[in-house]
């Protein structure tokens, strides 16, 4: 899952990013509204965590623009103004959820998961394909009931592949959705991760390579 945090308080942004990365998410940061909009246009984020009071371009404007151009991106608005009118206004601008500061970090994580699930309407809380089960919120994977230990990236790749429901997913898309902006686009991390993922999931193999196109679940 890929998340963009648009927050001008660098300390807060970094603390959130640190926590979300530990949850296995790929996190990018944007210190102002303009940067946030540019990034949200280029990359398909699952969730945008948007501070309302941003310098440059105001959070409300970012929210409207992203809602118009990227309907699939869930928008979670963060704000220091916790009054009811602010909540109503924020949601009316197109935000999907609203969290007043200060917030409990666990609540933020839960809401991000809920938003990501809402982005693909039919998606159940636990993904199942064949004998593999994947619980994004609790970050658990099992095959025939046996738990499988995965790294964050392996987990992310498997989540995207299972979400695609047998369709082929290109390496670029995996790179975009599972890794953050600091990853070299010419790297072979995707191939390496697929390799280790196949090994950990064991036999019979479930991830197959479509030569020249990408990967899919059998």
């Amino acid at each position, binding site marked *: 899952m890929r998340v963009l945090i648009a927050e*001008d*308080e660098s*300390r*807060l942004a970094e*603390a*959130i990013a*640190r*926590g979300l990365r*530990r949850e296995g998410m790929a996190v990018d940061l944007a210190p102002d509204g303009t940067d946030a909009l540019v990034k949200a246009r280029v990359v398909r984020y699952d969730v945008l965590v948007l501070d309302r*009071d941003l*310098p440059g371009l105001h959070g409300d404007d970012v929210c409207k623009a992203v809602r118009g151009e990227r309907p699939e991106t869930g928008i979670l608005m*963060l704000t*220091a*103004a*916790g009054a009811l009118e602010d909540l109503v206004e924020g949601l009316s601008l197109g935000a999907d959820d609203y969290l*007043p*500061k*200060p*917030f*409990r*970090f*666990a609540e933020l994580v839960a809401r991000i998961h809920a938003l990501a699930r809402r982005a693909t309407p039919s998606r159940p809380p636990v993904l199942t394909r064949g004998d593999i089960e994947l619980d994004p919120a609790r970050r658990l994977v099992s095959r025939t009931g046996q738990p499988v230990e995965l790294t964050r990236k392996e987990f992310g790749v498997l989540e995207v592949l299972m979400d695609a429901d047998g369709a082929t997913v290109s390496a670029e898309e995996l790179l975009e959705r599972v890794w953050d902006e600091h990853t070299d686009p010419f790297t072979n991390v995707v191939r390496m991760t697929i390799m280790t993922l196949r090994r950990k999931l064991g036999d019979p193999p479930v991830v197959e390579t479509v030569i020249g196109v990408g990967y899919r679940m059998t």
Partner: protein
Amino acid sequence: MRIGPASIRLPAPTIRLRLTLLYGLVFLVTGAVLLTIGYELVRHNLNGTSDYRNELRKLGLIPPSRPPAFGPGAAYSRIADAVRAQLRSDALHRLLIEYVVALGAMTMVSVAAGWLLAGRALRPLRDITATARRVSGENLGERISLKGPADELKQLADTFDGMLGRLDGAFASQRHFVANASHELRTPLAIMRTEVDVSLADPDASVEDLRQMGDAVRETVDRCERLIEGLLMLARSEAATGREEPADLAALAADCITDLRARAREAGVEVRDALEQAWTRGEPALLERMIANLVDNGIQHNEPGGYLQVSTRTVGARVQLIVSNGGPVIDPDDADKLTEPFRRLDRAAGGFGLGLSIVRSVVVAHGGTIEIWAPDTGGLEVRIELAALPRVSVTVVPKKTARALTQS
């Protein structure tokens, strides 16, 4: 509430009712006077010795000469007199009744007309009342905007509108302040909460990680402290205690410059001063904070190689403090707004945007004026005028003593 057999519900004594009754009364009195005059005139004219005898003579009822004392002529004359008296009395009686009836009818008409007219004249007042009822703290956008000639009621309505405008502004700035203050206070709380949550949620957090979390929290607590101190200072300067004593702005400025000289050197800012005695009355701690904020701003929002000029002087009955500094060019429109709380030109520069608000608030509390000017060449110039201490004491206070005094 009156209770009793005679508790007839009287209409409320509104201005409309009183005006109507007054109109009716005035009409009744003037009408009565006019009719009395008319009645008296008619009566007088009927009494007058008119030529009715000539008419009788023409008819041959009486002889053309002196009226006879006896005979049929005399009888005619007496009959004519009696008839005349009867006619006169009848006419006057009828006239009286007709007058009274007419006066009564017209009084009723005038009361009705008065009721309508009074209602019409008082309609603007009803509009004003209705608007005033609708207006509350949450809804100050309403205006009466009374149309019509510039009469007393229009003046009242316009004055009311003006007052609403000022209240609206005051409430808006109050709301703005509260929103900003809550934003500034919640943000560090959010940082601390997230730092702690994230660090504690990590079962493998090393001592180093926890130490970093502690550092971050401590830094954020410092920030909260500075913010709360700034807010308290602003509140204190707004409610000046009135504990005033003579103070020399020059001495206070010299101390501030000495304290901040190291910082200025670090920032590559050249500090110039032109300090002449400028004695005023005020709360020294607040005046000192005012100057310190200005000097601090002058260094903070400067550029390497820039200047900071502080001058004080006495001009007639006023003392002046002028702090100007170089730096990036500032939009003059923005410069005017810098004294609003939480107004910052550059959020990355740190600070909360309370410094100049405190300055303005101190100046206002001391009955002075403040002007902020953004020159085209960049930087900012702040000019403050306060009342000079009457009868300027020329006692030269040695700098050490002045300093000891101001620091106490």
